[in-house]
Structures are given as structure tokens and as C-alpha cells.
């Protein structure tokens, strides 16, 4: 009998195992290919048929990546700064707004939630130049704070949606009980609702971090070509280089840039599922 679709009673069969293994192989292969290419000497990257593994492991691509004037180390640092800060700000603002939208009862709440999501219908390329103009007027052109301020367009709507649905699953009795005990709304939010929302917040953190870490267009226009470049801007310059994409260097750079994301996923991926489920896990 096939497995009952519920994990606690799962009984896998050879067919399911095989299918999952195949799926995982397709899923992981490009990452493997990236790693393999990053360590290959130039000739092997383009040879046909290609070798699965480098005949000899070379670090030449990494040396070029971190060449004295490449500034790649600094770009990684910038990316860490921007992604971390954006993530924190997004978490705070989205937690507030999510709670307000889920538990408040004012007119137009539903409309607000929906229109937040509709922020994504505006093509970023149309937004970025006028935004750059505003930032420049305020003195934030080519700066990381300017970029962080703008990243909220990308991160906030999704985070609000996720947290609103999360807060909505919290039993209202919890906060209500606090109110009856004379606690202010602030305390009900801060001391009772928020701690229960940790998985949701963790999921928001992951989504936000990865989206800002990988973002290219806003970073490209807003921080310019100077020392505030982020890693994705640096990688795109390698991909679109005038002397052709240096795939070896690019793969080396991609690998380095992906390490923080991999670490984040390894430690936090279980929260994503919990975060998306909200408090609604049953039985």
C-alpha cells in the first residue's frame, strides 16, 4: 500500500526513494557544476565533452577573483551589511504591520494587505531612476543606507503578508487575556504575540536576506560602480565583461557569494516551513 500522505506515518517505498533521489540530483547538479568549474583550469571549462571533476584542482580563478584591485572582499562585506540591516528593519516594520493588520480592526485592512502585495506589479526598472533622483537630492546617492532604504520595496510586502497570516493564526484569546489583565496593547504585542511568532520571523529573515543578497538592479543603479558595490553587482560585471564572461572566475565568485546563503539555509531551513505554516500545524 502506498504511504499515507502524512509524515508521521510515512513508509517510503523504493519508488518514492528513487524519485526523491532523482529530484535531489537535478536540484543539486548546477551547484555541483558551479563548484567543479570554479576549480578547473581554463582549458577544461570549455572542453567537450566536459569532465565532471577537474583533472587538477586549481585555485587560479580564486586568485584572480580576489586580485588586489578587484575589491571583491569589500563587496562581500557590503552585501553582508546591506542584507543584515535590511533584514532587521524589514522584520521590525513587518512584524508591527503584520500584527496590526491581523489583529487590528480598522476599515480597509483587507485592502491594505492586498495593495501591499500589489507593490510588486511596478517594474523595478521604472522605479529605480526616479528613486535614485530622490536619494541624490537627500545626499544618499551611491550609498549603502540609500540602498537599504529602497530595498524595502522588495522585502516589505512579502514579509507583511507572511507575518499577517502568521499572526492571524495565533489564538485571539491569548492577547485578549492579557488585555483583561490590564496590559496595554503594546505589551500584548511585545511580550505575548511576538515571542510566539518566532518561526514566522525566522522565515521572514531568511526570505529577506536571500532576496536582498541576490538583488542586482537596484544595487547596480543606486550604489554605482565605486567602493559601495555589492557582491551581485561585482558578479554581473564579470558575467558581462567586455572580454567575455570569465566563467571560471564567475563560478568562483558565485560560490563565495553563495556560502552565507548556504550556511543560513542549513541552520534555518526548518523555520521556513514552520514560518509558512503559521501556528496552524494540526494534529
Amino acid at each position: 500500500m502506498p504511504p499515507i500522505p502524512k509524515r508521521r506515518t510515512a513508509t517510503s517505498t523504493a519508488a518514492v526513494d528513487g524519485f526523491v533521489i532523482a529530484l535531489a540530483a537535478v536540484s543539486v547538479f548546477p551547484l555541483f557544476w558551479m563548484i567543479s568549474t570554479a576549480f578547473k583550469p581554463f582549458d577544461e571549462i570549455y572542453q567537450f565533452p566536459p569532465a565532471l571533476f577537474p583533472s587538477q584542482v586549481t585555485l587560479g580563478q580564486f586568485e584572480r577573483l580576489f586580485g588586489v584591485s578587484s575589491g571583491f572582499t569589500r563587496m562581500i562585506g557590503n552585501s553582508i551589511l546591506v542584507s543584515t540591516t535590511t533584514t532587521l528593519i524589514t522584520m521590525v516594520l513587518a512584524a508591527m504591520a503584520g500584527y496590526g493588520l491581523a489583529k487590528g480592526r480598522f476599515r480597509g485592512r483587507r485592502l491594505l494587505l492586498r495593495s501591499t502585495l500589489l507593490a510588486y506589479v511596478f517594474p523595478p526598472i521604472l522605479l529605480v531612476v526616479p528613486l535614485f533622483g530622490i536619494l541624490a537630492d537627500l545626499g544618499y546617492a551611491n550609498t549603502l543606507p540609500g540602498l537599504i532604504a529602497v530595498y524595502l520595496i522588495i522585502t516589505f510586502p512579502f514579509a507583511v503578508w507572511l507575518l499577517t497570516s502568521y499572526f492571524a493564526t495565533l489564538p485571539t484569546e491569548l492577547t485578549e487575556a492579557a488585555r483583561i489583565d490590564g496590559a496595554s496593547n503594546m505589551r500584548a504585542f511585545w511580550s505575548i504575540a511576538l515571542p510566539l511568532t518566532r518561526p514566522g520571523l525566522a522565515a521572514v529573515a531568511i526570505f529577506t536576506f536571500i532576496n536582498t543578497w541576490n538583488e542586482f538592479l537596484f544595487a547596480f543603479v543606486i550604489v554605482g560602480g565605486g567602493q559601495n558595490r555589492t557582491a551581485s553587482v561585482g558578479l554581473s560585471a564579470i558575467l558581462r565583461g567586455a572580454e567575455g564572461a570569465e566563467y571560471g572566475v564567475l563560478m568562483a565568485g558565485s560560490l563565495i557569494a553563495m556560502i552565507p546563503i548556504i550556511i543560513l539555509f542549513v541552520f534555518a531551513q526548518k523555520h521556513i516551513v514552520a514560518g509558512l505554516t503559521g501556528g496552524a500545524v494540526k494534529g
Partner: protein
Amino acid sequence: MNQQPNPFHAMHRATSRRSFLGLGLAATAGLATASCSSDGNDTTDGGVTGDVVFWHPYGQETRQAELQVAFDIFEEEHPGARVQAEYVPFGDLPLRWPAAQQGGTLPDLMINIPENILPMHIAGVIDTDALGSLVEELGGEPFFAPGFLDKNGRYQGDTFAIPHYAHNRLMLYRSDRLAAAGLEVPETLADVEECAAAMNNPPDFFGWTMPLSQNDIGGGYLLWMITRSNGGSLVDPEGNQFWASDEVRAAADYLGRIASQYGPTSAATTAIGDTFNRFHDGTASMVVDTAANIAVANSTEGLDPELVASLNGTHIPAGTQPGHMVGSVAMTIPVDANVAAAHELAKVLYRPEVHLDFLLSIPMFHFPATTNIDTDAFFGEPLIAQYKDTVVAQTLAGIDEGSVAGFEDGPNPFIGPILDAKISEVMIQDIAFGGMGVDAALEKAAAAADEIVARIQSQIS
């Protein structure tokens, strides 16, 4: 046309915000300078202070190192000034400058290609007076290769771009495969077709790999070059387009035929830059590219030395003439720049020894478009000496005779939009891979070109 004085310069709405701020800063700086002078500190800097934002397209380590030398000299001679260098590759500029114009963050000095700078000039964001006076300070017309400025850097009398270095497009070939096929170095269009056929062995390697990606303007460049070889033009500076001419038709037919018979299908996603990889990985027997292609092969570690030794090049195949396509990598000064500092930095970059070191930073990548360098030292460089009679000679011939794409009658405001609309790439692909007849493909392209020309003329008038 009633374009004198140039009406494009009338509008400075976006920059006025910065002018206002700039005025304040200038006043402050002026006070500071004045107080310094009153201390008896007699600097002859002429106000060379503050940050000099410098956009350059030089990604490679070796080239950046030579730039750094120039920055160090500049900063040592002008202790109050500091260079803020930003890497802005050719492809990034069209996205970059409109934003910078809106934000008032244009650089003080920049290097890019005239094709990209002309739209900036038309938009009124190039300070042609500052550039004109820089030319004078450098020594006037004779400082540059004869005729080069007029052909590639002046529009309606205004200098908008002055060459930092130059190069020329060549027909590069694998001499080993050519020898194996028992063929001579190709001179004419027919020769090249014969060579492409003889050196075509798919899927291992192809006769002539063309960059026809719609992300790039490689197809437009090729079409213009072969049209020039036939003695024709795509569009003139008045906006007359010639897609219906015999010269363009012959070029389209030629390129479409070769791409389909002796080129890979992946040409459709091959960008100009990919020509490097395609030539260096052995899958292309011929490509159209600059001497830089061979220069990079010689400076890349890990390439097969025999392959590298077999790379050579000659001029673009000739019909009535070789369709030389010059590349000018040029300096310019945007409006509201720190002009004094920009002038000084530019002059340091052009200093004979600084400039020579830069030109040789990747040997045979850059060719001089200025007359002040030590030619013995330049041509004595081993790689350049090795290719003296072939690649080097043909590059110099092109710099002398040719022009930037579409600038055969001087800078042309129509060519950029026509190339950027990717009409040519789609047309050549239609003929090569889409089974479309040459006439039908040309008709479609001509209609698109007409629309662009009409739109620009409505904007100009």
C-alpha cells in the same frame, strides 16, 4: 536644421539641484583656498582640490594598476585632490548616466566609447568647452592621430570625446587550420567565404562564429563593416537610411549565408565578448574581433600554447575596400564637473611615460591615438613586434582610414538607436536560421529603421 546654437544644452533641470548645492560648496572651498593663500601658501594649483570622480571601463588588474600609478602622481602633485575611481564598463554606461543625470552625480572625468558618449552630448550633459580647452592644453589638434577627432569625437563643431586609445576590428583566423586547408590569408569577401568553408568542421569547430546575440550589437557591427566593404552605408547623419541599397543587401545576404552554413546555431546567443572564449576554446576558426582578442590569449594562463601561437589576423574582408571599424575608447568631461581637476588628471593620464605604460599594460590590447608616445618603445614590445606586419599593421591602417561604426561621415545621432534596436541581429538571424528570404528580412529591417529615424527627427526638430 536650426541647431545652432545647440538647443540640447538648454535644459539643466536635473543638474540645477546640484548646481545650487555646488555653489555653496564652491563658496566654502573658495573661502578655504583664500584663507590658505592669505597665509602666504602660494599654490599654483588653480583650484585643483576636492574629489575627482572618474568613471573608467578598465576591469583588468594590470590596467587598473597603471591607472593607479596615474592617480598616485596626480594626488602627489595636488595634495588637496583625491581620485574617486569607479568601474563603469561600456555596457553599463547607457543605464548609468541617465540615473546620474537625474541625481546630479555625473563624474568629473570619464572614459567610454564615443557611441555611448554622443547621446550624452545630445542630452546636453557633456561640457564641450571644458573638453575643447583640454585639447588646447594638450597641444591642440596635432596631439591626436590625424583626422581622428573630427571623425570620431566632434559633432557639429563641438568636441565631445577625445581618444584615450584606439583599436580596429580585424578578421582573426587560425593560421594552423588555414595552412592545413592549403589556403592563403583571405583578402576579399569571396576569400573569407572560401576559408570559412574550408575550416568548418561541426560540431567540433566552425568556419566563422559571429556574435549575433540580441543582447549586444555584434550583428549590427558586422552588417556595418561588410556594408562599408561594399562601399555603402547604413544611415547618414541627416537620417537617410539605406537598407534598400545594393550594398546593404549584399552584406545581409553574405552574412546570413555564412552564419547559416559555417557558423554555430548558438551564434544567436553569442555576444561580442563571447568571441574571446569561442576563439580561445578552439570552436571558432575565424572571428571578427580586435587585436585585444589575441592580446588576451597571450596574457591568459592555462590556454593551449600551440593554439595561442596559431592566432593571427588581417583586415576585414574587402569588397571595394576593407570595412575598417575603429574603436575609440575616449575621455570626456560631463557638465558641472570639477574642470580644473579633470584637466589635470587627464593630462597626467596622457603623460608620455604614464600613457605608454598603460598602452602596454596588456600588450597589443591598446593602440595609440595620440602622437606623443615613444613609438620605438611601443613597437619594440615583443608581442607587438611579433605581429608587426599583420595584426598591428592592419590595426594602424584602420585607425588611419576607418571610423567608429556609423561615423563614416562623422558622428551620427541615428546609428546608435538603430544599432541598439537590434534590427540587424534579428535580420541576419532571420536569413541565417529563420528561413526568411533576404528581401523580406531587409524589408522588415528597413521598416523598423524608418520608424526609429522618424522618431529621432521628430525629437530633434
